[in-house]
């Protein structure tokens, strides 16, 4: 293959960061190439060097980094590039799309201006012409009414639209290579599907080579032509996408693929116990957040009917902002119920007072999304786990509760001496396990878990989910499991409720809801979910297209 068909050619790239704690060797002598019109996906666990590699392609490394090797992008060696020539290269040689579209746009300038600015940094054209090009670009990425919207500020667009604008910004300069660092991680699945389509379209229409960084194997399966697996700064495997999924060579790749949850639609409906009183029963539940200064409040949840029986895991899914957390928090008494009825462990939550609630707290556990922030940084893990005991009067001091704490830590498979560590001295997965231990301290009958694994890597997520499943079976608590990942629900839940715009659109046994959805929204949600299998995903995509 001749070099001019290669959009990117990386040989022996090595990146080291100088820090007080010694050198951090982030990327260790990797080789990589991307052809024109090709989507190369780079996958790997967090910290494996994906972002560093991507940034090297644009010469965006901080001053403390030293890069060696050759990085030829669009015929230019980037590593040696400095100053004005580097600036001229950025944008026209290669462009970048960032993970969080909302932070990648300057909040105080109109989007049209921001696109035009890039154009004017590279070409000597009039403001007006640049703006015309910007508007064109906005139209191409599917922003409706672009003439008018070009004058709007970033915050006036939805998340998906913002990502489109960011893509338009990158494309406006006609780069031969587009580097996309987790371009859809911050987006809902349905929006993600749209963006992936847009990227595919870009590749086809403009012939751009795309370097796609992601940890979502579904996305890989959907878009990539070839895949490059990174592990601790090295590339362990590069293969065309079908091949990789069919026959992963490297051990790490195999482990990674195995950890990816898949939608298999197993029937795990809970048998028996129909006659037992439900631990949670919501009737026409309504939650309104008060508005400021007499402005109308915001109705986050309306008319929700819901039941969780003892020992049952109810998966609550829905897009961002649909009200999932709100319901979970209401059950835990953290958000005030403003209408309807919500009965939790026999306590009516509508109009309940904290004092009445307190004695019933021991029946309830809560697992938070972000394990890092749910621990008081000043207390040891042991003290945190023991806190429920002390609060409920079952122990007076942390020392007194020690035995129980050790038991609990063992239950979540953490060594006993972790009790004396501080939260920041644990890894993310370990912290989430400690958080589970804390939720289980009082052997609650009900656990509310709000996206407990979304902050974790897939492989870590797999371990935590496995553990969760074990514990649930062992302790038999009922659970409201909130997630946006349908595959995770599929793995755990007995029943599923789908939330959309604060209302439950569909509810039923997991297999039934995921296997044969009746509601169009549920169907859309399932369709939009890319499956981590390129062949299957290609079929689904074909089917989705009208």
């Amino acid at each position, binding site marked *: 293959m001749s070099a001019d068909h290669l959009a990117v050619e990386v040989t022996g790239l090595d990146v080291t960061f100088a820090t007080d704690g010694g050198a951090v060797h982030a990327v260790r002598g990797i080789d990589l190439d991307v052809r024109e019109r090709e989507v190369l996906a780079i996958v790997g666990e967090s910290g494996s060097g994906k972002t560093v590699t991507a940034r090297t392609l644009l010469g965006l490394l901080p001053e403390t980094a030293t890069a060696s090797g050759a990085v030829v992008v669009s015929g230019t060696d980037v590593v040696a590039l400095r100053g004005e020539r580097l600036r001229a290269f950025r944008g026209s040689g290669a*462009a970048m799309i960032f993970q969080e579209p909302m932070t990648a746009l300057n909040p105080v300038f109109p989007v049209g201006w921001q696109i035009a600015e890039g154009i004017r940094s590279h070409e000597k054209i009039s403001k007006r012409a640049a703006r015309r090009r910007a508007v064109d670009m906005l139209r191409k990425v599917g922003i409706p009414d672009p003439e008018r919207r070009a004058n709007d500020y970033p*915050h006036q667009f939805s998340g998906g639209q913002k990502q489109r604008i*960011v893509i338009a910004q*990158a494309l406006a300069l006609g780069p031969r290579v587009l580097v996309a660092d987790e371009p859809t991680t911050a987006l809902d699945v349905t929006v993600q599907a749209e963006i992936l389509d847009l990227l595919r379209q870009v590749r086809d229409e403009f012939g751009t080579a795309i370097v796609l960084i992601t940890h979502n194997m579904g996305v890989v399966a959907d878009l990539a032509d070839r895949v490059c697996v990174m592990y601790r700064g090295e590339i362990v495997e590069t293969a065309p996408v079908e091949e990789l999924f069919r026959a992963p060579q490297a051990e790490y790749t195999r482990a990674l693929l195995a950890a990816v949850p898949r939608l298999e639609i197993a029937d795990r409906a809970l048998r028996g116990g129909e006659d037992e009183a439900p631990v949670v029963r919501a009737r026409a539940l309504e939650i309104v957040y008060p508005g400021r200064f007499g402005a109308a409040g915001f109705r986050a949840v309306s008319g929700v009917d819901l039941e969780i029986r003892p020992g049952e895991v109810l998966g609550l899914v829905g897009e961002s902002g649909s009200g999932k957390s709100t319901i979970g928090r209401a059950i835990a008494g953290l958000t005030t119920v403003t209408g309807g009825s919500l009965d939790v462990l026999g306590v009516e939550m509508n109009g309940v007072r904290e004092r009445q609630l307190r004695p019933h707290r021991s029946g309830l556990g809560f697992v938070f999304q972000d394990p890092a922030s749910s621990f008081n940084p000043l207390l040891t893990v042991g003290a945190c786990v023991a806190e429920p005991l002390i609060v409920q009067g079952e122990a007076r001091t942390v020392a007194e509760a020690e035995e129980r704490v050790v038991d609990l830590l063992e239950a979540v498979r953490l060594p006993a001496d972790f009790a004396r560590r501080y939260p920041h001295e644990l890894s993310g997965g370990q912290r989430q396990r400690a958080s589970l231990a804390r939720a289980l301290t009082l052997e609650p009958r009900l656990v509310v878990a709000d996206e407990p694994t979304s902050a974790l890597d897939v492989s870590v997520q797999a371990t935590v989910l496995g553990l969760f499943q074990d514990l649930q079976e062992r302790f038999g608590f009922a659970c409201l499991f909130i997630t946006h990942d349908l595959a995770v629900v599929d793995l755990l839940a007995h029943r599923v409720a789908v939330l959309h715009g604060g209302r439950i659109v569909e509810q039923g046994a997991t297999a039934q809801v995921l296997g044969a959805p009746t509601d169009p929204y549920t169907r859309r949600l399932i369709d939009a979910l890319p499956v981590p299998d390129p062949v299957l995903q290609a079929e689904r995509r074909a089917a989705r297209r009208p």
Partner: protein
Amino acid sequence: MADIALAAETPTAPPTKTTTRGGTTLWRYVLIRFLLIFPTIFILVTTVFLMMRVTGDPITAALGGQLTPAQLAERIEAAGYNRPLIVQYAEYLGGIATGDFGTTIDGQPVTEVLVRYGGATLELAIYALLVAFAVGIPLGMLAAWLRDTWGDAALRVFAILCYATPVFFAGLLLKLVFSVWLGILPSSGRASPRAELQLGRVEGATGIYTIDALRTGNPALIADVLQHAILPGIALGLLTAGVFLRLVRTNVIGTLATPYVDAARSRGVSEFRLVRTHAYRPALIPIITVIGLQIAMLLGGAVLTETTFEWMGLGYQLSEFLKARDFVAVQGIVALLAVIVALTNFIVDIIAAFIDPRVRY
């Protein structure tokens, strides 16, 4: 002021969820923000009123010992200070609402004092702000640009020195150098005696000498007025300049670290432009907010500056009234300051709202 700096040094949070709720528009925000002025003024005025009265009635405070008890009683009676405090308070509030701030011990209406000396203070504050802007903002950007180099360190120490040097000490040193040693600038006053006489005779004088002098069109007069403004303007301005420098620096550095600056960089926008445009404008928002609070500091500094340079403004009068224990006058001036501070903060918030498209209530 420490806290001002802090508040503004808190990162400009990247715009998170921005929902335009319930049709809340900018105008609604303006209205709500406007209504908020009143409680602020009310509280300040009340605080001052109570503080001034805990010690007793203003007449005794000012004239006790100079008048016989009978004369005192008579004057207290005449001024109505023997009535219940709550009645006096209500009357005072009513007065303020109608623009009546009371009368000084020697019978001048406070409003007259305010009108007479307000212009001078305003003029000084404007000069100081000009100096602060001219010095603080470019140097702040420069420091951000030079971040973590010796140049940056030097600029930061300069900023702290500006803030650490009491206005009166700075004033003293400036006078020493420019008036005593070099003899090139006047040491006190707002104009030389003759010029002041001429300015007083300008038709419809505003009391703001620069304007009055410009209206006469007499270059010698304008030069005289400007010369007198230089040292006080610098002394007071540097104080604020230090704060601005720090603020601009931290905020520009803060915004330089945001992904959107990186994103712009990835599009090939030049480094200079990154600082000048992308980082500066968002950084300006917290700075503008702080300017509102700076007004308070500026007015406090004005008391010292005006005393040091005999700048016959409100700050100077205020310290005189304080020395004479003329609490009615103090109360009046302070109430006016409260109004000014509240109004500036209002205006500043509104400006910030216009600059920052995200600020909406």
